[in-house]
């Protein structure tokens, strides 16, 4: 009579295997879908997808900096440093795409390294506003200096991207270029996040004094996070510069920075995937709200306030709650809802 026990244990194994491989399967499905979409999308939607890939690099690299507890307000300007770097190198040195993109990342990393020197002296809120002021300084330099930055009109006629004689500028090749660069950047940052360095960054966030006592060089690791984040922002900036063919200081102003914050806050920063979820949701909402163009900042400003007050952990914090709720029997769920409602009512 040993037969009946067998399906049960097999079921258990399947359950464990499902739980282990389900994320991988989802990831594979998403990647496959994105590959197919590269050919199938309408031109307008393909443009949105290209910008989306660039923004994925932005939110992921921003989240990398926030793991140390430093919320920068200069990330979009550092992306701009990459864009300007790419535009100038491609235009004046005539180097190919494959060389320009890493060099743009290095340009942004150098600017980031200059930023972090005074910024290390600040923490928390001071870091936020000091980085805002430093970013404005760089942006004003772009506005002011005619050569080589072109002042308010910026840089036009950026050469179209090419790799070993292959033209990347048409939408479909550029879609896949951005897709591949995004995958590489996200993979590297994901590995960094799970490495010893990533753990050191997180330890600074949870308790910087304790981290220092354990022998972590806090200043060095904060700088490393900021410079690494700047490097990837620079890569994103290079992709943006090539796509638009012309850049000016307005592309990197405060409004863009606040949208970056909205993406990250809506998704949440506790997990690696949170900011990307936030970006997906807000991008879709952003496209839906196209008819209400002039009301958009108001709506998304409201969304930002709503999330910070009512859902400070972002959408990612809903995932364990929802899966918990699905696992508990309905009777208990009702009980839990009732206690939650009573506590909520007594709080307000």
């Amino acid at each position, binding site marked *: 009579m040993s037969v009946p026990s067998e399906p049960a244990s097999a079921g258990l194994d399947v359950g464990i295997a499902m739980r282990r491989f389900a994320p991988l399967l989802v990831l594979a499905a998403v990647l496959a879908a994105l590959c197919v979409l590269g050919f199938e999308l309408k031109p307008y939607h393909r443009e949105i997808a290209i910008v989306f890939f660039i923004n994925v690099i932005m939110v992921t690299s921003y989240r990398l900096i926030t793991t140390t507890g430093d919320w920068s307000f200069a990330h979009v300007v550092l992306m701009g440093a990459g864009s300007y770097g790419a535009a100038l190198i491609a235009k004046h040195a005539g180097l190919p795409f494959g060389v320009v993109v890493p060099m743009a990342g290095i340009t942004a990393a150098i600017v980031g390294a200059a930023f972090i020197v005074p910024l290390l002296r600040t923490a928390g*809120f*001071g870091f936020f506003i000091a980085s805002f002021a430093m970013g404005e300084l760089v942006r004003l330099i772009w506005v*002011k200096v005619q050569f080589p930055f072109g002042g308010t009109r910026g840089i036009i006629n950026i050469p179209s991207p090419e790799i070993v004689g292959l033209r990347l500028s048409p939408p479909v090749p550029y879609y896949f270029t951005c897709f591949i660069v995004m995958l590489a950047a996200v993979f590297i940052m994901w590995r960094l996040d799970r490495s010893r360095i990533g753990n050191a960054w997180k330890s600074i966030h949870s308790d910087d004094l304790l981290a220092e006592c354990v022998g972590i060089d806090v200043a060095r690791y904060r700088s490393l996070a900021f410079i690494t984040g700047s490097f990837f922002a620079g890569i994103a900036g290079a992709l943006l510069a090539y796509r638009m063919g012309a850049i000016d200081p307005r592309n990197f102003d*405060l409004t863009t920075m606040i949208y970056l914050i909205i993406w990250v806050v809506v998704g949440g920063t506790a997990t690696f995937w949170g900011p990307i979820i936030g970006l997906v949701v807000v991008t879709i909402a952003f496209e839906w709200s196209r008819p209400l163009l002039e009301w958009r900042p108001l709506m998304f400003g*409201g*969304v930002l306030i709503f999330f910070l007050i009512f859902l*400070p952990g972002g959408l990612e914090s809903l995932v364990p709650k929802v899966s918990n709720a699905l696992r508990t029997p309905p009777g208990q769920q009702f009980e839990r809802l009732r206690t939650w409602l009573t506590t909520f009512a007594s709080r307000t």
Partner: protein
Amino acid sequence: MDAATLIQTLLNSVVASSIYALVAVGLALAFGVMKMANFAHGEFFMVGAYCVYVLYALVGLPFPLAVVLAIPIVALFGVVVERLIFRPTRKNILAGFMATAGLAFVLQVLAGQIWGVGIAKSIPTPYMGAANVGDATIGWQRLIVIPCAFAMLLALRYFLYRVKLGKALRACAQDPEIAALQGIRTNRMTMLAMALAGASAGLAGALMAPIHAVTPYMGHGVILIAFVVVIVGGMASIEGAILAAVILGFIHTFVTTVTDNLIATMVGVGFMALTLIVRPQGLLGRERA
């Protein structure tokens, strides 16, 4: 630079310093009490200017009355922001700060949708003519900023150091828990701090309305300078904010006169970076930014 230009620039510096001081004092005060970091402070300035635009240029009230009315209106704004944004996010400074960044968006769109985006609102100059100081001439409209700002700052100082409520506010800024043990209601104090912040920023905006270009986005330039002033002065220090406002007011005006506005802003931010490297706690601050 000849004598006339020098006197003119000095006077302009005092005007600029007064406005910076008015704006930055509110920011430092709110940050001192329960670490309320208000990104929408520049928008308070903007609302103050729009109050004068509506009450003086559209409704036709006398200019001084419009300015005086702008103070309680923007102070009320401050109270609402405290109640709706800062109190729920009190546990996390950055959350309140980012939420007020969202609020800045909201207020800009509202001002733009109600009164139009396009060109700057034209406000007729209430006090025409100019005073002659030596060889220099300076418009009355600019000169009246100085006594108004002084009066506001002195009143604020009297309130904080002589009035019981003001002393309670300072106690709350020093240590909210001990203050609460003395029977001071922390929630009242945070509201009061935001009201004072709104009042001073609103007055600054109202006074600048006839001089400054009134647009929904006028807060942006103001908030940058206010942040620089507050960091240089030392985050939560009111005296530091005033000292830094005077220093930066002079630097900004002199550099603007010699070169232009953009370079002056850059010099100001550079000065901030230098202060952070040499003296991270700011000129008169006690703790690091």
